[in-house]
């Protein structure tokens, strides 16, 4: 993989009159890339098939009738059965699960962005004070606490407090994301010059106003990062809804798949149609906003 780096080296100065014509020719040949490595492109393309084949498999299986399932399963369907989706839609009560998941995800993202950035701001700007520095490390230490140790007690607690609901889940995602989010928000806020806030304060803005009018808008790149991470987490999470939610009508999409799997495990095409419907919403969002999602996650890591 690494020896491809050789290809990136400068063009060979083979003849004295080459520089005048060579650049144009090269640009036409490989789009101005300065030497595309086709072998590596092919290798990467083959590797990308490992990602695409299981997805292809999910799609074709969801379109088949049960009697077409023999063989390797990679064959294209001979006749398409769209009713698989209608069946899955009804069996898993898809619209309800979708609504629950969407509600929890949107709620978690909003509450996380509004509160976690605020806490991080207060900590970042008062890091010289013992209290805030202590808080910073208190929150950070929680990154090392695995969820299974909280799992049993928090179920008791949420049941006791009436938080065994989608609203409770929103709160839990906001709280459990706090550690990591504070870590990346604080790093980012430290890079924002304090002078900007001081100018606003001179104009008579209160600390709250400074945060909402000056700091929060400047945080947009980090808000995008935290928003994407929280969204993917809350949408796909299985364990927390499994243990916390007590009302069966509050089921999320992954939870509905789990229960569906237990009840109708023989009809694979319908099961796959149901998987596809559960995976589709986030996949569609990702395809549309791909560039944005990738750069969002990247930014979080560069900090």
């Amino acid at each position: 993989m690494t020896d491809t780096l050789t290809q990136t080296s400068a063009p060979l100065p083979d003849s004295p009159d080459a520089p005048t014509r060579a650049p144009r020719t090269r640009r036409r040949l490989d789009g101005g890339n300065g030497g595309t490595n086709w072998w590596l492109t092919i290798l990467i393309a083959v590797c990308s098939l490992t990602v695409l084949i299981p997805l292809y498999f999910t799609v074709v299986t969801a379109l088949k009738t049960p009697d077409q399932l023999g063989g390797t399963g990679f064959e294209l369907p001979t006749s398409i059965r769209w009713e698989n989706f209608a069946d899955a839609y009804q069996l898993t009560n898809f619209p309800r699960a979708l609504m629950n998941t969407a509600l929890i995800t949107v709620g978690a993202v909003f509450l996380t962005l509004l509160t976690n950035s605020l806490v991080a701001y207060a900590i970042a700007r008062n890091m010289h004070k013992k209290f805030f520095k202590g808080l910073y490390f208190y929150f950070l230490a929680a990154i090392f606490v695995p969820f299974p140790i909280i799992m049993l007690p928090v179920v008791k607690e949420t049941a006791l407090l009436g938080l065994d609901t989608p609203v409770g889940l929103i709160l839990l995602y906001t709280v459990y994301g706090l550690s990591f989010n504070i870590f990346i928000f604080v790093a980012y806020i430290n890079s924002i010059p304090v002078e900007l806030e001081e100018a606003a304060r001179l104009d008579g803005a209160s600390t709250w106003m400074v945060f909402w009018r000056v700091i929060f808008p400047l945080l947009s790149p980090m808000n995008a990062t935290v928003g994407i991470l929280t969204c993917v987490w809350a949408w796909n999470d299985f364990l927390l809804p499994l243990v916390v939610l007590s009302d069966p009508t509050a089921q999320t999409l992954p939870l509905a798949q789990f229960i569906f799997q237990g009840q109708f495990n023989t009809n694979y095409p319908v099961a796959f149609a149901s998987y596809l419907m559960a995976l589709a919403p986030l996949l569609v969002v990702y395809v549309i906003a791909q560039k944005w999602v990738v750069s969002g996650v990247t930014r979080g890591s560069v900090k």
Partner: protein
Amino acid sequence: MSSTLTRAKTPAAASTTPARARSSIARTPRTFYWMVVPAVVIFFGLHTIPVLSGMFFSLTNYAGYGTWDLVGFSNYINLFQDDRVLNSYGFTFGFAIVSTLLVNVIALAIALGLNSKIKFQAAFRGVFFIPYVLAILIIGYVFNYLFANSFPAIFTALGLPGLSGNLLASPDFAWIGIVITTVWQAAAFNVILYLAGLQTISADLYEAAAIDGASGWRRFRSITFPLIGAYFTINMVLSFKSFLQVFDQIVALTAGGPGTSTESIALVIFRGGFQGGEYGYQMANAVVYLFVIIIVSFLQLRILQRREASFS
């Protein structure tokens, strides 16, 4: 309001105007306290209290319902004689070590490929990142079917009857299926992180190395790898920690089976705690697990950080 400036900029001036300084110190921080105190209270309530109450109940024989008595450290002593628990630690660590190494090696290789002069770079990057947005539970169900039906059919057709069994039905090899599924899903996120790291390396360094006649492997070893050392450390620590908590894909692939051969620590805590009436006992398990994760994370950080380099 502008008096806050005195606090921030000229602490020396505070002594000359004590009244103003005191009022600003009293006022501005109060707003900051209001910003954090509700969060601290809720965090303490929903995170720290469960941890503390869990630690307390690990010293009891609480079943999850009914009455309980303090039993001292007997839960902890029993843990070390419980084959099911010991087996789950063995499985979880083996799984996490293999998966962490594979995910990081594969993700780094893909990121290196994506970072070099290839065609359709953006499209390939988009493809490799897809698994990140897919729920591992559902991916697990898809792979479950692949392992049970498709792969055996393919191997039979290829004339390899030795491989035509269901991988997940074998007590010795089911863990490999879990590793494959996990790596498929988790590599995506690490690819993006490594790619971010690779893009911070200046092309000048490679050009200088090329002039010195360094080979591709030599350049990777002497430039690329040391410079993305911080990313390597973070990725190793975070993926190892998250793989030690493996749960979803096991539920979807093997449900801990065959027998209890692929039961992870999280699954044992879940089953024993919720279904087996072992609340106190599994909390002891969870406390041990917490300390194991903390120790392992710190060891990893110490060992890996020594390898990092920075040219600045």
